[in-house]
């Protein structure tokens, strides 16, 4: 390949990624050159500005069609822009949250945290904007590695150490499994480009290995399920969410999870869309029962164990397992409604979950414990915070007039649209009802318990912004969902996703 | 001839031929080791105004080393009771085998070479790294805290200096565009690479001294200060194996340096009538001599200085060398 060919690509399309990379580099140098005793808190503002610039750059590129660089190792299409938007908004909010987390200022928010967050974001963005197996995998690893370190940054905290260690061991195992599955896909087709694989899977000689293909699909799926914390790789979530600092927990439960769904959808759907299974049915239809079982198990396990939790962070960790189970439902069912259902739910989940963690951060920092009782009597102490928390929790529970309801409704409809998945929809309803118990327990604590400790929870600027943005978005998405959906319909073109660049 | 052998179908005869060739090389290497040790002692003696070995084998002590080796071989073989027996036995083998394996890719002249593989240089670096495992293993298996400390020390040194060593040859690879050692020699027909990438040569030379654990980097076995190193518990022929590995590496490293930086068998201009093997031997001997010379003149450096020197001086220099070499190639060699 000549230099001219490489120069001829539209490298400007990588602007959001390059801005994030540049911001991370500058931050790392600034952290190195700053006086040792100086507070690193203001690096968060710079990181936030970087994310904002990247978001602006992304908005300016929205009208572009499919742009592919170097055989799809970087690919800008409707899918990538829809999800990069989610990542950037999520990370921006989390940076604001981190800015106000004064609890661990002494060690966990040293400069490293901010640029590791940015490199993690970069990994996630590359996962969204590539159609090459190698780039996808390297992006996944960049995200994982940065997250492992962020989870363990609070070095003197035993829980944080344990969290990081469990995370890295589980992550290593899941990476090995993913890679094992991917190696079969590569070995059978000899390609790394997803569209080339899709094409090669139509070859009759390769198709004699359907059994192995189904196996490769399931193994890759299981490996990737680590990132989204669903069965069978859900066990790390409670410990890690519990031990890690709250902004990291929020990042893991929102951005990292969304990135997991992104790589699953991109990698598995594009490659296997046309592949036939062992029997006469297409492969994707054949594996549906297995995926449905995993989705169902995640919903059941997440919601049932959450019932027993007294620790608010652990409770929301199990809740997030259950939520990931809900999002797996459209994946297991695979219909035309799938993309909008997943995207919308992830968007709604982003706002409501970050909102929840923002308030958990406020309240637990005040009370000094992460037990659920720190919420007791919150309504009398700080009514506005209690109301916001109620909105987020209701949204997570899926009550009408909140974003969570519309999201769940979309998923529910997609489960019913292709038929024969009534039982999965049934599990979804049943587990949602179960989830009311623990979600309402939080609300009950806030409104009906007498306060154990007096004192108003004061709300600093960064968290206030985050909470306000999240509340407004949760309500707007709940009452006027078409604003987001119309944006999605305008921007998202399914044909761009499945067909290679000409 | 090798070419022909490699092309024809395999059989027992071939096996025998290859085995014999290997045995001949081993004999040459052992001969070198014998006289390198003698030379070292003689040169050191000369520098310290002594005579050096002068009893066994005539005035020059020509059989001194042979006698020493014989003594080692008939010594009692001691394995400490609490040592990890299998690993204790395995360690010297693991340390020695790679040192001989790396010679397989070394081209001594146009005709005298064994395996002409595409990744020769990388092969040398990769395989020689295995020896560090043998040393660490020997230190651990002895079940003695001094040998364990010595093993740790050697492993740290080997790993640290391997990085500038590898980085410093990138300049050479850039000039040649190949990892094949024969190609690298061919590329030096007109000018040896030590003139084109002097920084690379100096970094390589210093790191190779450390890799060979020779003065001033002989901490792994500083017998006068640190109760020797990983091999305190070894005696007799097992100990001889470790020492042998060290001297075979001296042979291999000096050959590699000749090939990479001194132009291998290429003659100095106007002296082309002298055969390539002789040129190779001359350049090779020069390097061995300089290494002995350094041993006679330099003091030993401290452990913390050792690490700082590798990471803070040699590595940046090696990186600079990559940059300079690329510039030289773009500006002058195009």
């Amino acid at each position, binding site marked *: *390949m000549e230099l001219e060919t490489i120069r001829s690509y539209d490298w400007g399309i990588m602007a959001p990624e390059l801005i994030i*990379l540049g911001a991370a580099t500058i931050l*790392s140098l600034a952290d190195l050159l700053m006086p040792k005793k100086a507070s690193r808190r203001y690096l968060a503002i710079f990181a936030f500005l970087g994310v904002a610039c990247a978001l602006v750059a992304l908005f300016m590129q929205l009208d572009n069609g499919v742009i592919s*660089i*170097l*055989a799809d*190792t970087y690919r800008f299409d409707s899918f990538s822009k829809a999800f990069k938007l989610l990542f950037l908004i999520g990370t921006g909010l989390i940076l604001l949250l981190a800015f106000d987390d004064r609890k661990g200022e*002494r060690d966990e928010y*040293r400069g*490293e945290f901010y640029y*590791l967050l940015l*490199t993690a974001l970069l*990994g996630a963005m590359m996962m969204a904007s*590539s159609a*090459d197996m190698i*780039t996808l995998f*390297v992006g996944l*690893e*960049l995200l994982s*590695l*940065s997250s*492992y*370190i962020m989870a363990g*940054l609070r*070095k003197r905290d035993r829980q944080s150490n344990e969290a990081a260690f469990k995370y890295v061991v589980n992550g290593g195992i899941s990476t090995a499994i993913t890679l094992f599955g991917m190696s079969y896909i590569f070995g*059978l087709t*000899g390609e790394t480009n997803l569209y080339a694989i899709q094409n*090669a899977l139509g070859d009759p*000689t*390769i198709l004699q*290995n359907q*059994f*192995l293909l189904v*196996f490769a699909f399931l193994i890759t799926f299981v490996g990737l399920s680590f990132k989204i914390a669903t069965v069978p790789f859900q066990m790390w979530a409670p410990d890690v969410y519990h031990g890690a600092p709250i902004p990291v927990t929020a990042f893991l439960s929102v951005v990292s999870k969304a990135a997991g769904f992104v790589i699953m959808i991109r990698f598995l759907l594009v490659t296997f869309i046309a592949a036939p299974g062992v029997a006469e049915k297409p492969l994707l239809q054949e594996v549906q029962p297995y995926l449905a079982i995993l989705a169902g198990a995640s919903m059941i396990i997440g919601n049932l164990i959450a019932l027993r939790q007294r620790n608010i962070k652990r409770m929301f960790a199990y809740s997030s397992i259950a939520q990931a189970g809900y999002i797996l439902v459209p994946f297991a069912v695979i219909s035309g409604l799938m993309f909008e259902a997943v995207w919308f739910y992830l968007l709604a989940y982003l706002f409501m979950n970050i909102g929840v963690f923002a308030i958990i951060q406020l309240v637990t920092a005040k009370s000094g414990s992460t037990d659920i009782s720190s919420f007791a009597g919150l309504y009398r102490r700080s009514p506005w915070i209690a109301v916001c928390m109620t909105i987020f929790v209701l949204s997570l529970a899926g009550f009408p007039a909140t974003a969570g309801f519309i999201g769940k409704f979309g998923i529910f409809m997609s489960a019913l649209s292709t038929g024969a998945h009534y039982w999965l929809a049934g599990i979804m309803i049943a587990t949602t009802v179960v989830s009311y118990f623990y979600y309402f327990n939080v609300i009950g604590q806030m409104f009906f318990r007498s306060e154990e400790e007096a004192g108003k929870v004061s709300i600093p600027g960064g968290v206030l912004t985050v909470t306000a943005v999240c509340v407004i978005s949760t309500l707007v998405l709940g009452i006027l969902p078409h604003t987001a959906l119309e944006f999605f319909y305008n921007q998202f073109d399914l044909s761009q996703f499945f067909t290679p660049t000409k | 001839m090798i070419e022909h052998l490699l092309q024809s179908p*395999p059989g027992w005869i071939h096996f025998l031929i290859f085995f014999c060739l290997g045995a001949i090389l081993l004999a040459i290497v052992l001969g070198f080791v014998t006289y390198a040790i003698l030379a070292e002692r003689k040169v050191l003696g000369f520098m310290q105004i002594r005579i050096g070995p002068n009893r066994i084998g005539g005035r020059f002590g020509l059989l001194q080393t042979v006698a020493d080796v014989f003594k080692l071989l008939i010594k009692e073989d001691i394995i400490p009771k609490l040592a*990890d027996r299998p*690993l204790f036995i*395995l360690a010297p083998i693991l340390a020695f085998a790679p040192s001989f394996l790396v010679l397989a890719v070394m081209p001594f002249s146009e005709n005298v070479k064994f395996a002409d*593989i*595409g*990744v020769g240089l*990388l*092969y040398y670096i*990769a*395989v020689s*790294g*295995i020896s*560090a*495992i043998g040393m*660490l*293993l020997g230190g*651990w*298996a002895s079940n003695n805290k001094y040998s364990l400390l010595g093993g*740790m020390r050697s*492993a*740290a040194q*080997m*790993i640290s200096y*391997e990085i500038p060593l590898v980085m410093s040859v990138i300049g050479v690879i850039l000039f040649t565009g190949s*990892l094949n050692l024969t190609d690298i020699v061919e590329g030096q027909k007109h000018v040896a690479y030590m003139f084109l990438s002097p920084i690379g040569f100096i970094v390589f030379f210093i790191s190779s001294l450390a890799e060979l654990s020779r003065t001033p980097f002989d901490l792994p076995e500083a017998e006068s200060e640190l109760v020797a190193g990983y091999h305190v518990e070894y005696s007799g022929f097992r100990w001889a194996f470790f020492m042998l590995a060290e001297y075979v590496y001296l042979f291999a490293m000096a050959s590699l340096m000749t090939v990479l930086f001194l132009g291998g068998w290429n003659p100095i201009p106007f002296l082309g009538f002298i055969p390539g093997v002789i040129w190779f031997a001359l350049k090779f001997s020069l390097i061995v001599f300089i290494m002995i010379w350094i041993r006679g003149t330099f003091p030993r450096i401290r452990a913390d200085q050792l690490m700082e020197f590798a990471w803070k001086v040699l590595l940046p220099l090696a990186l600079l060398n990559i940059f300079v070499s690329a510039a030289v190639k773009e500006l002058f060699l195009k």
Partner: protein
Amino acid sequence: MTGEMIAFFILALVAICGGVFMIHSENVVHMVVSLIFTFLSIAGIYILLSAEFVAVVQVLIYSGAITIIMLFGIMLTKHDPKSEKRIAKSRILAVGTGVVAFFIIMFLAINKLSFKQQDVELYVHNVKKIGIELYSKYVIPFELTSILLLVALIGAVVLAKKDESEEMNEHE
């Protein structure tokens, strides 16, 4: 049976034995030594496949990596093999069944493997081809990998470095 087959079987056997010993032994250093044999025989298999560059890189990376693992193994573990916990019989049985089932599935799957026409010229100028691919077509993942390594480096330093306040406490 050709020489290649014999070599393959020997290498495969050594690799598998290394893996089994690695799991079976209770001493960290023994585990690492078994790993060496596995990695080296895998490098040998690469050579049989004419992938000399990959083989050499395998040796290069793993010989360094193994030494480091061994250092950590020695430093971070107790040298007391008796402190091992006994594992319940039922668990061994369950895991064993899983492994056997996995083996049977995989064996059935790869038993009737069919491939497209293979590219037979790949081994010629192996290194050059890899280099060209890496620095042109795959330059984006390549650069991304460098960021990944940088993150790993920073992370290792951050997690392993002592805080200054900690150091001060120790001096007092």
